[in-house]
């Protein structure tokens, strides 16, 4: 009797991740977000296969061409295939999003957890630092940091003997990732701190201490997993912001530098001198702009969907 009753009771229980997945799929905006995000990630991973040309292959004989069978979106002033550059731009965007998120996690989670758990001067120090970061208008501060650390990173590369790298423009990935990461951890730290503050008072944390679990392990195994849902939601929302910020930085010329492909620097090129010379190629402004907008919306919809899926009672 007990046996069959137990069967019945656990029969209808699906694994939690499956329940979340179902709620996402049944929520149209979240599903749109998920599809776009997966699409962009796939394009990023398969860029070498999908793109008909290398993103940096110049062909001055075929410069500034309108769309054709060979170049679906035409070519830029240096004869680079725009369709390929936009595909490779997905890889840049995804790489920057992932790396900035990792930097944010690496800084925000330990600092926020320490501030929330120990309180006192640790809390004061971390939170005042976060306040300083919040006191500046976000993107302005990123510009400031990017402009400040760029010469330093280039000098460091030269000192290491990587002259080619220092001049190539690829170091700009490091500049973008570090500047967005340095500014971006504060929001996550605040969130983690608030979560730790509430979870650490719960009885199972005292119970863990009563079992003799060391403090570090209490934080990582007992407290943080209980704060996972809001962190996941915040990260998802934040990824859209990161994509947009990378676009801004690259558009302003302090982000990713050509030949590194970025929707932001493609926009800048297309909307600048080049567009004045070839105003008929307006799609080179529209397409990267529309893709960037879609990605930002996608991450926000997905974040909203996750919020509803992970907190179904609200």
């Amino acid at each position, binding site marked *: 009797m007990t046996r069959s009753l137990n069967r019945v009771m656990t029969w209808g229980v699906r694994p939690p991740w499956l329940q979340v997945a179902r709620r996402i799929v049944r929520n149209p905006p979240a599903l749109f977000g998920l599809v776009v995000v997966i699409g962009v990630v796939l394009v990023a991973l398969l860029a070498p296969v999908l793109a008909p040309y290398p993103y940096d292959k110049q062909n001055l004989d075929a410069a500034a061409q309108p769309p054709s069978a060979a170049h679906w979106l035409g070519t830029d002033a240096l004869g680079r295939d725009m369709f390929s550059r936009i595909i490779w731009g997905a890889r840049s965007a995804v790489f920057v999003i992932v790396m900035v998120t990792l930097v944010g996690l690496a800084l925000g989670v330990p600092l926020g957890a320490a501030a929330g758990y120990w309180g006192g001067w640790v809390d004061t120090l971390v939170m005042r630092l976060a306040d300083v970061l919040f006191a500046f208008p976000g993107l302005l501060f990123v510009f400031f940091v990017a402009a400040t650390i760029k010469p330093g990173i280039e000098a460091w590369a030269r000192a290491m003997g990587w002259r080619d790298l220092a001049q190539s423009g690829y170091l700009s990935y490091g500049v973008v990732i570090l500047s967005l990461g340095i500014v971006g951890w504060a929001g996550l730290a605040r969130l983690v701190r608030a979560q730790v503050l509430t979870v650490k008072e719960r*009885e199972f944390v005292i119970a*863990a201490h*009563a*079992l003799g679990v060391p403090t570090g392990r209490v934080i990582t*195994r007992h407290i943080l*997993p209980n704060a996972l849902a809001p962190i996941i939601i915040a990260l998802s929302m934040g990824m859209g912001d990161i994509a947009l910020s990378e676009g801004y930085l690259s558009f302003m010329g302090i982000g990713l530098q050509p030949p590194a492909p970025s929707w932001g620097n493609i926009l800048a090129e297309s909307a600048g001198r080049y567009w004045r010379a070839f105003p008929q190629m307006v799609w080179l402004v529209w397409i990267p702009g529309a893709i960037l907008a879609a990605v930002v919306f996608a991450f926000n919809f997905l974040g909203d969907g996750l919020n509803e899926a992970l907190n179904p009672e609200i």
Partner: protein
Amino acid sequence: MATLLEVKELRTEFHTQDGVVHAVNGVSFTLDEGETLGLVGESGCGKSVSMLSVMRLIPMPPGKIVSGQVLFQGRDLLRVDDEEIRSVRGNKIAMVFQDPMTSLNPVLTINTQISEALELHQGMTKEQARKRSIELLQMVGIPEAERRVDDYPHQFSGGMRQRAMIAMALSCSPQLLIADEPTTALDVTIQAQIIDIVKRLKRELGMAVVWITHDLGVIAGIADRINVMYAGFIVESAHVKEIFANPLHPYTLGLLGSIPRLDAALKSKLTPIEGLPPDLIALPKGCPFYDRCHYRTERCENENPPLELGAVRHSVACWNWQDVRKLRKH
């Protein structure tokens, strides 16, 4: 029997915005190996805080263990380093908490939670710990333990969760189990089962138990000795039969008067203790029970009575316990 735990003059305070809360005010008691001690009193009288202080689980700040000694097997737990207290917690002294709904971690499986102490203190591998977890669950009477060990707490009922908590606490065969109102959140039939489990395991494992409760009915069947606490003081301490047969402190008398008895006359009313316990921020200089006491005298207002021997192995903190014995109504 050898002394397992000796608490001397333990004082714990909480520093809050409103002032200093004197939660435990010089509590002393001893516990022998294998003995069961009942710690009784109403909410906020310092039962839990005194035992949490013994394990150094008071959140500091705002809490502070101001003074005292906690001698466990001869070592003062209040003065050993963090590493050493961790090796005692869960290993030699274990604790079961009041609410099984909140004292299990919702995101970890039962197996993970029981195994944790085994891996930490006994150096078991994951497989060994899992095997032992299943045995422990069987010991506390969870059916189909091999399968249920991988469940999450939300798949367990309240009584099963409290059994799992007990399995966790007993995983390393502690010498002392502190049970902080482990049956309060459960319904009566489950309460009886939990009490039976603890009694049986206590007999089998030979451990000492401190059972914290506000329910004298629960404690009567388990405890060897009872400490009655009030406003952070121990006001009476005696063998369980002695407490019920011959209460000397007016507060104990009040507690006994406020529980229903099967042998009471029909339609007789329960007599509640009038009033409220004193504000722990501003304790009176005299007896803390003064305001609510039917036996109070002038001396009680100005001098706090110490815990003194009133009868054989029976201590009481009351200036007028001899009058109480003469005047009490049953």
